[in-house]
């Protein structure tokens, strides 16, 4: 029963939201539509030429191989880890759970930076081994390095989905299966795996999407995939637009499969059993610790040792502990501006989603989610050309950079805004009205205080996420505008490790806070 308010189909607030939301969704879509139009209007002969170029085919193969390998590796690491830290009887389970989640805090490009400096041709390990006669380590660059680093920093996505799915299993059903005379292995394959595999695959697809759109890691590892090629060829519009279109198509395919699995994961009943089923490993249990130990050694310990080691290096620019105030200020400035714009502009859409009106709100919602599918380099590319062609005076200015952040991180903010608005039961406002408060006072006394906590959480999440964004910042920042991220990027490029030490530690703190917020948003069980 949809209430009708007199002759108007929608109440005035909803009508207002609909108009604003449509405008915002339209603005967000413009650059991608323009990019698609550009790619489509490339003359057919040129198109064939670009597609059949050896380079193009190589990039496609490289990307697919890298994405598939990383996804498989991430699943192979994450599923056993989830079992060990959730359902076994190893000691200090909470500690190991936190340890194996920690790689989430390290942006993969910073991980790649650490790996190159440690295992690269002039790295620490090479120098140490040289004394023992090892002349050359197998190269860290290329496919293997990219896959290793991406696996180490993305497996937590699979780990988290698998773990929460394991927690929804009824512990008694395992007992039932065993008492029915089914063997351990069959119990696993027929009962446990059947129930958790949608979550595993959903997590795996998240990893695939991440790898496909990640720019920093393959760039540092000098491995030619779509993102790196688009970045390098960003001034060759026809070529890079077509590459972007292929990349976007791949991302959308992954996302649409993911949303199917995600649906089947989230629609399974969310009963919280007080206990998770436990498998006793007896004397083997101490041995089992080895696995999370090895993974966190490579994922966390090695990069941390590396970064702290850099503090002993002499930076090019003065003291290793000299705080880069200008860069911090710039980072905070753009992140704050972007967070304000994103949080405010996503409110009307969140309002429609939370209040489940109008029936066609899905279109607006999907349009505003384009940032999920669009890798940063694609947004960057679209805005470089769109900006230089139609927004002459805004090209290479902060507003354009912030607009790019808006497109990329808009979806991040809708979620928390929807939570914020749904946390206000309309009945509460009605109760306030019947107690003599007018609509405006009701808003300030009821809606506003209730919305504020999740609104602030959403704001902070966007703020922190923007601060560590790499490709858009690199491509669209005004000339001479340096942030913490570009500082790190330049230091990597020039092997000035001492310059990067302090900014990286700062960025890790930012990143850590954003992860805490993200996990808090997704539920009380991190």
């Amino acid at each position: 029963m949809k209430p009708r308010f007199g002759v108007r189909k929608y109440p005035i607030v909803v009508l207002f939201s609909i108009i604003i939301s449509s405008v915002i969704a339209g603005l967000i879509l413009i650059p991608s539509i323009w990019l698609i139009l550009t790619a489509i209007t490339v003359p057919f002969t040129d198109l064939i030429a670009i597609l059949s170029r050896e380079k193009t085919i190589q990039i496609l193969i490289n990307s697919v191989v890298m994405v598939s390998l990383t996804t498989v590796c991430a699943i192979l690491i994450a599923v056993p880890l989830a079992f060990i830290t959730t359902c076994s009887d190893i000691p200090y389970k909470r500690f190991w759970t936190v340890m194996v989640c920690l790689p989430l805090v390290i942006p993969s490009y910073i991980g790649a930076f650490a790996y190159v400096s440690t295992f690269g041709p002039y790295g620490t390990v090479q120098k140490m081994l040289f004394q023992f006669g090892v002349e050359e380590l197998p190269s860290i660059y290329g496919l293997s390095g990219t896959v290793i680093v991406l696996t180490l920093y993305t497996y937590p996505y699979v780990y988290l989905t698998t773990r929460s799915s394991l927690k929804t299993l009824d512990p008694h059903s395992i007992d039932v299966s065993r008492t029915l005379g089914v063997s351990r292995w069959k119990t696993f394959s027929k009962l446990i795996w059947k129930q958790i595999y949608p979550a595993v695959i959903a997590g795996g697809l998240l990893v695939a999407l991440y790898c496909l759109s990640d720019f920093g890691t393959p760039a540092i590892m000098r491995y030619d995939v779509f993102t790196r090629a688009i970045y390098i060829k960003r001034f060759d519009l026809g070529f890079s637009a077509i590459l972007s279109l292929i990349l976007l198509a791949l991302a959308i395919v992954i996302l649409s499969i993911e949303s199917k699995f995600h649906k089947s994961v989230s629609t399974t009943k969310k009963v919280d059993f007080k206990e998770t089923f436990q498998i006793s490993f007896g004397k083997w249990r101490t041995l089992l610790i080895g696995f999370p130990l090895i993974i966190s050694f490579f994922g966390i310990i090695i990069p941390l040792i590396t970064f702290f080691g850099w503090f002993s290096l002499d930076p090019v620019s003065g003291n290793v502990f000299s705080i880069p105030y200008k860069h911090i200020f710039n980072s905070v400035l753009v992140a704050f501006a972007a967070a304000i714009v994103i949080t405010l502009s996503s409110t009307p859409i969140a309002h429609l989603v939370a209040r489940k009106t109008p029936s066609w709100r899905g279109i607006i919602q999907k349009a505003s989610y384009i940032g999920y599918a669009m890798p940063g380099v694609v947004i960057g590319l679209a805005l470089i050309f769109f900006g230089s062609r139609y927004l002459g005076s805004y090209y290479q200015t902060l507003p354009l950079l912030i607009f790019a952040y808006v497109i990329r991180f808009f979806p991040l903010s809708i979620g928390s805004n929807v939570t914020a608005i749904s946390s206000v039961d309309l009945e509460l406002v009605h109760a306030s009205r019947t107690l003599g408060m007018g609509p405006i006072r009701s808003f300030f006394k009821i809606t506003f205080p209730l919305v504020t906590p999740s609104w602030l959480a959403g704001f902070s999440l966007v703020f922190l996420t923007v601060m560590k964004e790499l490709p858009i910042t690199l491509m669209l920042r005004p000339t001479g505008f340096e942030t913490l991220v570009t500082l790190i990027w330049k230091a990597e490029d020039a092997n000035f490790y001492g310059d990067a030490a302090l900014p990286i530690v700062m960025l890790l703190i930012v990143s850590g806070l954003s992860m805490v917020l993200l996990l808090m948003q997704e539920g009380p069980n991190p």
Partner: protein
Amino acid sequence: MNDLKPLEVWPPLRSNDPIDPVLEIENMFKNFSGNQVLSNLSFSVGKGELLTLLGPSGGGKTTILRCIAGLQEIDGGSIKIHDELVSSPGMIVPPEKRGVGIVFQNLALFPHLTVGQNVSFGINSYDLELYPEKVDDLLKLVDLSHKKDCYPHELSGGQKQRVALARSLAPNPSILLLDEPFSSIDAGLRIAMREELRTVLKTTGTTTIFVTHDQEEALSISDRVLILKNGRIEQSGTPQDLFNYPRSRFVASFLGHASFISGFLEGDIISTIMGNVNRKNIYGLSKEYDKLSIEILFRPEDLNIKKCSPKKSNGTATYQRYLGEKILYKVTLSNGEVIQCSAPTTSDIPLNSDVCVSIESKGRLAWFPPSRVG
């Protein structure tokens, strides 16, 4: 329901319309996306009266409350509070200007405010200066003085319900609306809570409209009950009048166990399979219905059931259910009609045994035209 209507005037003997109405609803209509939810509804509530809207779920009860509170516009008719028009099609006085309090089904306590702040929410600061003890008085009234600084999530279901009540009473509303306030409270506590509610409402002299789908709740708490079905008033009256003199089979069945048994009127005697009834004992059955088949409404307490020999028996006990203080039986009479009657728990009538059911009514019985004519 049927063309055949009683000729005599039916109760209520007491006047149905309050002399001093606080709320008057006239010919109210309400549609939701084309469906008529309320049609041509008229009733009024007197000062200090506790009126209950009773009816099956989806009968439009909550919609009536929302229209009275000004949370929904109406599509026809009018609503007046203290002789002042507050709602008519296209015109609506906003909820905050009506002086109507409401306790929602989900209670809608403000989660970010304490019990004390919730209760004082609707009292304006001027009043609070004049009567600083008002919040404490209200909390004392609902026996929650010790929870003043607690937040809603720290309270039990019953306590939350009492906070919601105190909060809605605080601004001295001219009418209080209660939308199934006990729905989230377990059965045991519910009976105690409704006694308490009635005491509080009568102490404060609050004019109240109470909505429920529970007939027992309605009959035990109300001054007057309005039975709703599909957005129309089926019947209204005091609980006793409704129970004893239902005007339709729907009302009769809705208010308690009801069986309809056929009888044949001849002179002053109606003969049924369970024995004869004098015409004077049937309400509103006049001589003009002579030589006609009618159906008489029997409640379990109008009947007596006992074991007897197959020769004398007039039915078989086919079903039994313990109701606590008594046992409810369903008896299939020898002519195929089914009747519900009750016996003390000490009686030992086995299932499928032969029984004698006899009429033992001391009061007057209600009758209906036969449901299956021809």
